[in-house]
């Protein structure tokens, strides 16, 4: 494509860039202006606004429209939340869920990445295409399908458990008839299924990224190590992992951010915002703000807490990306 137009090496060509630079100094800012306005108005301003709202008692839409006063409560919303034992449940749910999901996604994603790197060409293409399907499926429909798979009458999982020999099923779980079993009723089981859904959605990105990283590692290194008799486990920790450390760093941070704010999957799996024992921060904030009676101020305070947690994680991410931009 570079040869599309030959640039004549004339005096004019050599002078041109310099002359242009002096003249159009303001142009880049003009080009940036629309993007800056949109990001400012639609992302940064609301971010400030959510903090501001968290200091008020806002319990009606009329207050939001500006028809009624906003009573200032200072840190009142925060003390309300932090002194409520339920907040601890929510925080525990959020942190444990994120930790479990990041761990499982990273392990499964890395294993699949390593596997794709070892498979023959045809097989690798086939497996990668299937993995892409999971990635491409929208969170909404992916979750709906999983809910169908766990349906309590005709779902595949219910059928599978019914198909177990009665003795075995009784011995293991204390029941042999699984028809009508509420897979989503106990919080622990709910979180297990939510984890399955989220990991299914998010491991492809890790796998593909790890695979891309592996392709950039010279294969001689691995071969040399294997010739020297190193076990696959040692090869991974001594060669692959150190070389891909920056990739892993970014993937872990991105996964952490994503898994901390899971919403759609939980909303669909729980069928709305009524299942309080399984609340995590993002759905808690939403439910407080929008389920009647609305408490926008309280919801905003929870959103701020979530944002602060993610801000710390983001700090790590930006530092990592900038370090790599410098290196490349």
């Amino acid at each position, binding site marked *: 494509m570079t040869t599309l137009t030959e640039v004549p090496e004339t005096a004019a060509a050599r002078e041109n860039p310099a002359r242009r630079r002096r003249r159009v100094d303001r142009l*880049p800012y003009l*080009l940036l202006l629309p993007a800056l306005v949109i990001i400012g108005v639609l992302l940064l301003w609301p971010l400030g606004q959510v903090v501001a709202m968290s200091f008020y008692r806002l319990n009606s839409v009329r207050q939001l429209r500006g028809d009624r006063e906003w009573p200032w409560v200072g840190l009142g919303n925060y003390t309300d939340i932090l002194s409520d034992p339920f907040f601890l449940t929510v925080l525990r749910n959020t942190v444990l869920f994120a930790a479990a999901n990041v761990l499982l996604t990273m392990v499964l994603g890395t294993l699949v990445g390593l596997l794709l790197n070892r498979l023959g060409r045809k097989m690798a293409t086939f497996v990668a295409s299937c993995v892409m399907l999971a990635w491409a499926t929208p*969170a909404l*429909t992916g979750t709906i399908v999983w809910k169908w798979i766990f349906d309590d009458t005709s779902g595949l999982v219910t059928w599978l458990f019914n198909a177990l020999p009665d003795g075995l099923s009784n011995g293991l779980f204390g029941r042999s008839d699984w028809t009508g079993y509420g897979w989503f009723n106990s919080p622990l089981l709910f979180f297990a299924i939510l984890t399955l859904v989220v990991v299914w959605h998010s491991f492809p990105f890790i796998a593909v990224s790890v695979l891309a990283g592996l392709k950039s590692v010279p294969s001689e290194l691995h071969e040399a190590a294997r010739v020297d008799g190193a076990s696959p486990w040692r090869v991974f920790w001594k060669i692959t992992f150190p070389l891909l450390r920056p990739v892993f760093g970014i993937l872990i941070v991105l996964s952490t951010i994503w898994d901390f704010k899971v919403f759609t999957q939980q909303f669909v799996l729980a069928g709305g915002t009524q299942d309080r024992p399984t609340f995590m921060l993002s759905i808690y904030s939403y439910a407080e703000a929008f389920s009647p009676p609305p408490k926008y101020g309280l919801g905003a305070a929870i959103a701020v807490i979530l944002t602060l947690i993610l801000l710390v994680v983001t700090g790590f991410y930006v530092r990592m990306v900038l370090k790599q931009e410098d290196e490349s």
Partner: protein
Amino acid sequence: MKKVALNAAGLLVALFAAFPVYWMISTSLKPSSEIFSSTPQPVPAHPTLAHYREILTGNLIPGVSFLDFFVNSAIVAVATVVLSGLVALLAATAVARFRFKLRTSFLIMLLVVQMIPLEALVIPLFLMIQRLGLYNTLPSLILTYLGFSLPFAVWMLRGFVAAVPKELEEAAAIDGASRAQTFRRVLFPLVAPGLVATSIFSFITAWNELIFALTFINDQSRYTLPVAMTFFFGRDDTNWGPVMAASTLFTLPVIIFFLLVQRRMVSGLVAGAVKG
């Protein structure tokens, strides 16, 4: 032996990843008797398009058909794509073609704003939409999704703009083209494939979004497809055949678009971490 084990593991992964998608399509093609039978059929024994017919001719929610929601979603997504592509192209040109004082700050800001938990912005954006009088309108969603898709669009497009050799524009300038002409006749055609890729991401963002659409739209006839589907699906005694047919129709465009651009997704997100 080892090869067999690897291939077996590969098949297992493929099965886990693709099965739900297969099951969605397969269920959508089964007559209800097969769907609700006590032994599931792996493959539809008597494939039928009845559920699709039901979805496309009947009403998903009383008074509103699947196609109405489809159109709502399409309007929102296409408007988002056009606006976001245009603004992102301008900004990407600025960042990729010029060295100016605030360039690095702008790039850092792009990275940081992508990390803002959008879920935390529902409440303040709801306030803004109420104040602007946009509550219960499709433009409220277009505006919201424009903000959400823009940072990634700029981040991704800047690579495409930077890949176009500067000399081409300089040559055009020497030939007497104005800056606007250079942009339109030289840069734009060369960046177009990148613009398509970027647009697909904006499209998927807007097409899939649920929370804001759930919050900003009150009138059932203005629901986007995801909101309509949660309502349709959330009723008691879910009728899985039509639900799976609707899910399939909602999912297929996304999968097709996604497969076209997935390569760039990785490079965009892992920004420089993976070389080559």
